[in-house]
Structure formats: structure tokens, C-alpha cells
């Protein structure tokens, strides 16, 4: 009979996992040692898999020439967000090509992403004049990169963050006006202390016929909210072939001290009569740096 083993618990942020101690597979993460034992791992209900956490990388760092940049490993992750920041003086003149690999970086193919600023879809961006956040579905790919080409002036910096499928908002089933609804907290008390964009948790929304949001803000500055969508269209074809005609990005502004401010996908530029996105996330950015308060946004969806 095997000797009873000591369970080990790993907590990273809101992610938790329990495994049975196995001296042959100890992993040290920070000050915690996690004893990996896949055959006996237990997951806390409602929590995620501890080994799947968000990854970040700098793909291009003030690049002034034509370069492949740093490969961003996204193996096992679902969505990647790339922030492209061009120089302004001199202005960046050149193209950033978004590419993905399914074989560890041997073969690269162009990959379509959606622009937060323009609400359009493209596999590259040429001579951008403002910083923008691009969202990509990277499920199944091992790596992505932001290759520069045709650069004749200025520099560009590209940073990335990729998240697993399970970094999605926790759901609460409830009723609203007599209908069953699902609530998701997609920004949970975000204390913004800068003017850079912040992305929300990813929400799977394909199962809803209607979707709305409530915003709560105690920030002492207004905050602009824009939409990123990903995945496939429900009605026809794939995101890769969609023209984007039904989606024109619209930014809404959450004022100072907003309490349960309601807005919808239509307010963000999505005509839900045309389609319902597969996944979405929101991007929050302040034009002026707040010094106090936080932002929460809760969605409510009516299932199909």
C-alpha cells in the first residue's frame, strides 16, 4: 500500500490547484513550491488550472528597422492582445505585420486581429499614428510575432499579453425583470493609475441573444471604454473573412462617479441584429491619470 502523501496547494492570484506531493516533479514558483502530479491533481470548483496563467512579452522594443522581433510563446493560450506604440517625432513610417506559427516558429502565417482604435480587422498596420490595442484568437498556435517591414523612419514598440481560455469572468445566474440572465464581472475594482489601456477579462458571449453592461466608477477622472471582439461569427463564416461592415468601433465615456451606468453593445458600435460576437473584452483608458477610486463593469446576458 502506498504511503499517504502530503497535498500541496498552489495559489496564483485567483487561480488555485491542489496536487499530491511528488518529489520528482517539484516546481518552484516565487516563494511557493508546487508539486506537480497531473494524475492526482484536484481543481477547486470555479477556479482555474494553476499552470495556465497570463503571459506577457515585449515583441518589439523601439525597433527602427526591419526585424522579426521577439517570438511570443502562446502555446495553450486562447487570446493575445498586442499593444502597438509608434513614435511620434519622428513619426513611425513602416509596417507591423502580425504573424502566427503552429510549429514552434518554423513556419509563419499572417494572422488577423481586431483594432481597438478603428474597430477594423487586419493582418498588418502601416504607419500608425496613435497607440492601439490589437486582439487575436491564438487558439492552437504556438507563437506569434509582430514583424516590421518597410521601415524608413521612427520606431515602434509592441508589447503583448496572452491569456488562457479559463481567464474569463465568473458567472452568476440570476433573474432580471423576470428573465433568466447571466451576470459577469469583467472589470472587478480596477484602480487605474495611468493613461495606458487596460483590458478586461474575456467574456464568451455567443450564448446570449441580448447583452448589456452596468458601469460603476469611483475614479476621479472619466474613463473611455471601447470594445474588442474575437472568435467566429455565429451566423456566417469566420472572423478571417468578415468585412467588418456591421462593426464600427465606438468609444463611450464613463463619467466621474458613475453609479450603475447602463450601456449596450450597440453603444459600442455592434449591431446585434447583424451578429453576436463569439468573445469580447473591453478596453478602459483614462485621458488624465486618476488619483483615487476604481472601476467595475458588470455584464448581463440573456441566454438564447
Amino acid at each position, binding site marked *: 500500500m502506498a504511503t499517504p502523501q502530503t497535498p500541496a496547494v498552489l495559489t496564483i492570484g485567483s487561480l488555485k490547484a491542489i496536487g499530491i506531493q511528488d518529489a520528482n516533479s517539484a516546481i518552484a514558483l516565487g516563494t511557493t513550491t508546487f508539486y506537480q502530479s497531473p494524475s492526482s491533481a484536484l481543481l477547486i470548483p470555479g477556479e482555474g488550472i494553476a499552470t495556465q496563467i497570463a503571459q506577457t512579452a515585449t515583441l518589439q522594443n523601439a525597433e527602427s528597422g526591419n526585424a522579426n522581433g521577439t517570438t511570443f510563446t502562446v502555446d495553450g493560450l486562447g487570446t493575445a492582445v498586442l499593444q502597438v506604440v509608434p513614435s511620434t517625432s519622428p513619426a513611425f513610417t513602416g509596417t507591423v505585420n502580425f504573424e502566427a506559427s503552429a510549429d514552434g516558429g518554423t513556419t509563419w502565417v499572417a494572422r488577423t486581429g481586431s483594432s481597438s482604435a478603428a474597430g477594423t480587422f487586419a493582418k498588418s498596420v502601416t504607419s500608425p499614428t496613435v497607440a492601439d490595442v490589437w486582439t487575436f484568437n491564438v487558439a492552437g498556435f504556438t507563437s506569434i510575432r509582430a514583424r516590421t517591414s518597410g521601415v524608413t523612419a521612427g520606431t515602434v514598440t509592441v508589447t503583448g499579453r496572452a491569456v488562457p481560455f479559463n481567464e474569463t469572468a465568473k458567472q452568476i445566474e440570476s433573474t432580471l425583470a423576470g428573465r433568466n440572465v447571466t451576470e459577469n464581472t469583467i472589470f*472587478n475594482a480596477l484602480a487605474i493609475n495611468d493613461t495606458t489601456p487596460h483590458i478586461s477579462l474575456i467574456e464568451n458571449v455567443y450564448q446570449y441573444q441580448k447583452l448589456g453592461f452596468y458601469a460603476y466608477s469611483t475614479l476621479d477622472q472619466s474613463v473611455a471604454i471601447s470594445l474588442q471582439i474575437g472568435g467566429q461569427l455565429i451566423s456566417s463564416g469566420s472572423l478571417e473573412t468578415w468585412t467588418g461592415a456591421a462593426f464600427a468601433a465606438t468609444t463611450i465615456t464613463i463619467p466621474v462617479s458613475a453609479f450603475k451606468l447602463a450601456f449596450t453593445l450597440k453603444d459600442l458600435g455592434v449591431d446585434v441584429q447583424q451578429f453576436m460576437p463569439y468573445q469580447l473584452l473591453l478596453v478602459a483608458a483614462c485621458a488624465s491619470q486618476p488619483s483615487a477610486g476604481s472601476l467595475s463593469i458588470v455584464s448581463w446576458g440573456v441566454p438564447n
Partner: protein
Amino acid sequence: MPTETKQAVEWAYTQSYTDPLTKQTSNITKDMPMQLVDAVRSYFNSNHIAYTSFRYSDLQPYL
């Protein structure tokens, strides 16, 4: 997160919050994300502690 985060959270638990609708006052708890984050931020500001943007999930190791 700043090294003073644990103290900030403990201080936040000593603060109270008044609901703007019901006017009821209650102590801040770990189950009040916005009130807790706002109080922690207030502690950082009052004690001149440098910090970057953070969210409720960043405080969970200190709760």
C-alpha cells in the same frame, strides 16, 4: 504590489462604507471589491506609497 499592501488591507478593514442608496453604513470586508480597493488606494495616497494600477485580484494574496 507595494510591500505595504498587507498593512493597507488591514487598515481598509477598519474603515466603513455608506451605501449611497440605502444610506446604511457597514465595515469594509473582503467581499466588497470596490470599497476595499478604494480604501487601499486611499491608504497608499495618504502614506505617499508609490503604486501602479491594480485591481481586486491583485489584493487577494493579502486578504
